[in-house]
């Protein structure tokens, strides 16, 4: 069974991430409180706080009870407390999440759509000049590391020409509202979005193009053509639609790559999403935030993958019969 198999897969993946989050700080040499809470906690440390933390994590209990306490806290939505920000990790993450969702979501939609359209056009006339230049161009662009592409855009459009802002997601203290606010957000979004999108068109483009090539050999394409249907109808309705399926299955994997790509792009543009938060946490050795962010990101990628898996078997009935 397809879905049963993939459920087991996701459970293993989820347990691995949980175990990594749990064991890594506790296996470090030295004081586990230090490893769990980072440097900032030491400054705030009082005997009462220490006693509280030991109790909270059941650090004086055997390992399996500690794991139980860890799971219990997670189930209650408690990701820990950051002494660097003086706030619960969950609220810090929630505050940053919308920016990453905006960036990654838009990049996913634009890069997938563009990739599909360009892939269909390219695969339709394989070997033509248009196909060759598209292929070379997109392969070149997707060979660039996302952070370097971001840096190039930043230096060109931000530093040298000053068309777009250098960092952040909104103009601070501008008190904008309504349409001006939306424009301001888009203005800040443009460069990181372009960097992320350009780096990720390649994958869906190449996949669509390659699938087009094999789809075009099917008899129904010949049939459609011999019926005298216009080129465009054959290209999009008959060939293009059938070339979509593999792209859909890859969306989950693409999403994982986009999210990790966003980490780097956000750092270049100091875009205040989860990626930049990761970077700040790394610099400050703020382990609770680091753990919280990475747990949330990893689990969301897993969930997205799982949903894609499910929808795929709905989209293509052959998948259900094949297993």
């Amino acid at each position, binding site marked *: 069974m397809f879905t049963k198999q993939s459920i087991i897969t996701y459970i293993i993946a989820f347990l691995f991430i949980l175990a990594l989050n749990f064991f890594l700080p506790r296996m470090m040499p030295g004081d586990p409180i230090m490893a769990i809470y980072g440097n900032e906690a030491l400054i705030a440390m009082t005997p009462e706080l220490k006693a509280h933390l030991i109790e909270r994590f059941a650090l004086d209990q055997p390992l399996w009870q500690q794991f139980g306490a860890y799971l219990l806290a997670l189930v209650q939505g408690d990701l820990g407390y950051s002494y660097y920000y003086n706030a619960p990790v969950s609220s810090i993450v929630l505050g940053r999440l919308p920016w990453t969702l905006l960036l990654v979501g838009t990049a996913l939609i634009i890069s997938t759509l563009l990739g599909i359209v360009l892939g269909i056009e390219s695969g339709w006339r394989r070997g033509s000049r248009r196909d060759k230049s598209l292929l070379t161009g997109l392969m*070149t662009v997707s*060979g660039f*590391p996302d952070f370097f592409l971001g840096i*190039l855009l930043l230096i060109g459009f931000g530093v040298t020409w000053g068309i777009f802002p250098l960092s952040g997601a909104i103009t601070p203290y501008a008190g904008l509202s309504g349409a001006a606010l939306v424009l301001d957000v888009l203005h800040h979004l443009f460069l990181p979005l372009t960097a992320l999108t350009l780096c990720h068109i390649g994958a869906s483009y190449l996949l669509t193009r390659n699938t087009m090539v094999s789809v075009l050999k099917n008899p129904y394409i010949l049939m459609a053509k011999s019926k005298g249907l216009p080129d465009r109808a054959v290209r999009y309705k008959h060939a293009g639609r059938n070339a979509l399926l593999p792209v859909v299955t890859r969306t989950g*994997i693409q999403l994982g790559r986009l999210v990790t790509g966003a980490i780097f792009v956000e750092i270049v543009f100091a875009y205040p999403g989860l990626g930049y938060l990761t970077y700040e946490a790394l610099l400050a050795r703020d382990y609770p935030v*680091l753990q919280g962010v990475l747990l949330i990101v*990893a689990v969301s990628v897993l969930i997205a993958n799982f949903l894609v898996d499910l929808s795929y078997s709905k989209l293509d009935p052959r998948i259900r019969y094949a297993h």
Partner: protein
Amino acid sequence: MHINPKQEIRRSKFAMFGIGMLLLLLIIAIFGPLLIPYQPHSQTPFAFEPPSFNHWLGTNHVGQDILSQLIYGARTSLLVGFSVALLAIILSAIIGTSAALAGGLYDKIVMRIVDAFIVIPAIIVIILVAAYLKPNLLVLILLLALLGWQDGARTIRAQALSLKELGHISAARSFGASNLYLIFRHILPDLVPILVMGFIYGVRRAVFMEAGLAFLGIADPTIVSWGMMMHEALDFCYLDVWRWWLIPPGVALSLTILAVTGIGHTLEGALDPRLRREANA
């Protein structure tokens, strides 16, 4: 398989560019340090020097020669790229072929683990582990290899499964050949093209990840790397220094990745019969 990958590669400009570029990088990485008069870590009192005869690419914020850092960076990238890819493809081959031939429960368990690791975003795991362990180069290589064999194992298993059904293999088996003999004598030789491709994509992935981690500032600070150079230079991008400090490592990194992609893409086209050149309708 009646494919001639050598011929395919010779016919493709992209692949020839890739091979030429990689050879050039190898030469630079091996012999470059002999020609350069500066050590990448030795500091001079002259910070932020623009390019000159003494320092072709100028100096950075603590007066280190940028060209020598660039050359030593090529060493790091290639060393990490090749050793990670080699380790990973060996792991993939062992696990993929053994799962295909042994089958049964072992196969099921191994494939579930492989699938689980494929859906986990590797870079996140690496950031988390690296933040705690502060890995040196060896640990980094092992870490990247441990997270990089799963995709290859899946492809190799699939290929080995179809090879297993071929006539000459069941003939050998009926003569009493053991699994190990079958793997080394019959299956591995037929897997060579796939192994090469897995290796090449492994190199790309590892070069990319090493640069990314160094860019995040969590790689070993004593090792010069392109990612680290960019990490340091980005803080000064409002000065003119980006022209000779930030762009060269970025271009070098992009060219390396592009070169590897070129070889991989052509090989992939050569190995996948559906993508091979034929008349378009």
